[in-house]
């Protein structure tokens, strides 16, 4: 009975095993990225990026037709350009990061729509580019694994300056130039994660598995390392439980994983140890006891 409920879907169907491996692998890399994005108040960058990659995908389409690799590569380049340009403007001028990102993603989207319409087709390029967690082939799984590996090594390299940047960007700018480099490396990792996430899992799941676990982690830890650990763990739980929900309750897979994460988030808002609603109502009592 319990076996049928929890294990049989994965034992019986290969596509379920692939979905689980893909979603979990992505969660391991995406959750820490999400935590840093949240701390930098850039939580909406994922959705902006989903549109910003359109001109790259469109150019890839113009050059080589409906070739998913050309389109993904184009999307990566467009994403990099938007993220780096927005990051540089934000550092060099008074404009805040979110505003300059909004500007660049809208410009990028406009260019993309123009390029697509010049070709006179109405195939929804983004729809074509965005994959489904239920349809992971070997190449896509390798891509996700590669992406997570690069992300984890990249984060390890720039971890310290990145943390300092989150807390006090002006301090690091005054003592050395390493902050700018760390920032650009981080933006590059964001783009790589999102684009390969779109390619593998579709927009909703790629962005959701990045941001929801981060928001959950915020309610359980003050220390950034613990926050990341909680985020990764809740990402893994949401992936597993979400796929089961999709299997048993016939809910589309992407929304299903996100809904499970949403339940975890609601519980964290209520009962989280750091700033949860219940904890706020009985202030400090359990700390003194």
């Amino acid at each position, binding site marked *: 009975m319990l076996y049928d409920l929890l294990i049989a879907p994965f034992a*019986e169907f290969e596509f379920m095993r692939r979905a689980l491996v893909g979603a979990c692998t992505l969660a391991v890399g995406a959750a820490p990225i999400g935590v840093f994005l949240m701390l930098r108040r850039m939580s909406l960058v994922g959705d902006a990026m989903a549109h910003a990659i359109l001109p790259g995908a469109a150019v890839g389409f113009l050059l080589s037709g409906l070739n998913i690799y050309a389109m993904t590569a184009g999307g990566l380049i467009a994403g990099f350009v938007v993220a780096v340009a927005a990051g540089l403007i934000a550092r060099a001028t008074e404009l805040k990061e979110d505003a300059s990102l909004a500007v660049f993603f809208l410009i990028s989207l406009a260019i993309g729509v123009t390029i697509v319409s010049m070709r006179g087709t*109405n195939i*929804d390029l983004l*729809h074509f580019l965005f*994959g489904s967690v239920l*349809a992971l082939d070997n190449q896509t799984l390798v891509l996700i694994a590669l992406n997570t590996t690069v992300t984890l090594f990249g984060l390890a390299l720039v971890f310290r300056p990145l943390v300092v940047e989150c807390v006090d960007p002006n301090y690091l700018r005054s003592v050395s130039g390493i902050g700018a480099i760390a920032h650009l490396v981080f933006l590059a990792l964001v783009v790589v994660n999102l684009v390969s996430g779109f390619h593998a899992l579709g927009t909703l799941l790629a962005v959701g598995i990045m941001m929801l676990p981060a928001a959950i982690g915020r309610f359980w830890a003050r220390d950034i390392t613990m926050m990341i650990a909680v985020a990764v763990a809740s990402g893994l739980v949401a992936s597993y439980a979400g796929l089961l929900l999709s299997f048993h*309750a016939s809910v*589309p897979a992407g929304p*299903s994983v996100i809904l499970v994460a949403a339940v975890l988030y609601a519980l964290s808002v209520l009962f989280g140890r750091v700033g949860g609603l219940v904890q706020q109502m009985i202030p400090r009592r359990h700390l003194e006891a």
Partner: protein
Amino acid sequence: MLSRRTAIAAVLLASLSAAPALAQEKLKAVATFSILADLVKNVGGDKVDVISLVPPNGDAHVYSPSPADAKKLADAHIVFTNGLGFEGWIARLVKSSATKADIVTATKGIKPLKAAGGHSHGHGHSHDAGDPHAWQSVANVKIYVGNIRDALVARDPASKATYEANAAAYLGKLDALDKEVRETIARIPADRRRIITTHDAFGYFRSAYGVEFVAPQGVSTDSEASARDVARIIGQIKKQKIPAVFLENVSDPRLLKRIADETGARVGGTLYSDALTDEKGDAPTYIDMMRHNIRTLSAALVG
């Protein structure tokens, strides 16, 4: 030196000499998608200029019209739509373009099938409008052709004889096509007349010709498959030994490849459901499309 008066006279003369051409101007027709445009072209012949709003290989389910489309509608004398909820965007476009054209629903008189019937239980969604892909049965297309002919005659009675002759000739071709489809399917063993395809667009084909289609998505290309749907289809392929899965020109092929890999079913090639290809493709006209589909089917199922 040209005076202003002579210039005006020249312009007037030029417009006068253009006038006879205006009198013979062709009827401007707009069809919402490429298959319908092909049918109108066949009935209208050289009396009618047809434009398709959704281009070849485009997906009419999720099409978003441009201002140029509104202009095409405003300039048109007659507009053909499929109806049955196929082009959800057309009603608003007609209103915003303020066109004075006749709006013709080509499926008038066709008994709609319930959308996504048969094996799609456990799907959890219902459609009131019925399955719009009525052209997948040649018998229905004969009704389309009748509707198109009547609408053209009503708009342009002077060319009545041409339209009727064109329609009669095309109906003859459709009869031959219908016969060809039935004969080809008769050659496929009855227990092998089952395939999987990406979006459920072949309901009319199934009910007219007796080939079973199973789809991993709902009837519209919008909806995303759940893990349960995919598992159900994989289970069904294994149990019923379904020989082949097919791709369409407007859907995401990756899911279908995954299903084929997992079951050992053959990927049987591309079927065209909602859109024709351009001139160079396999299916530039409706008749070519049906021929291509039926040959692709029989190649995968007979072998």
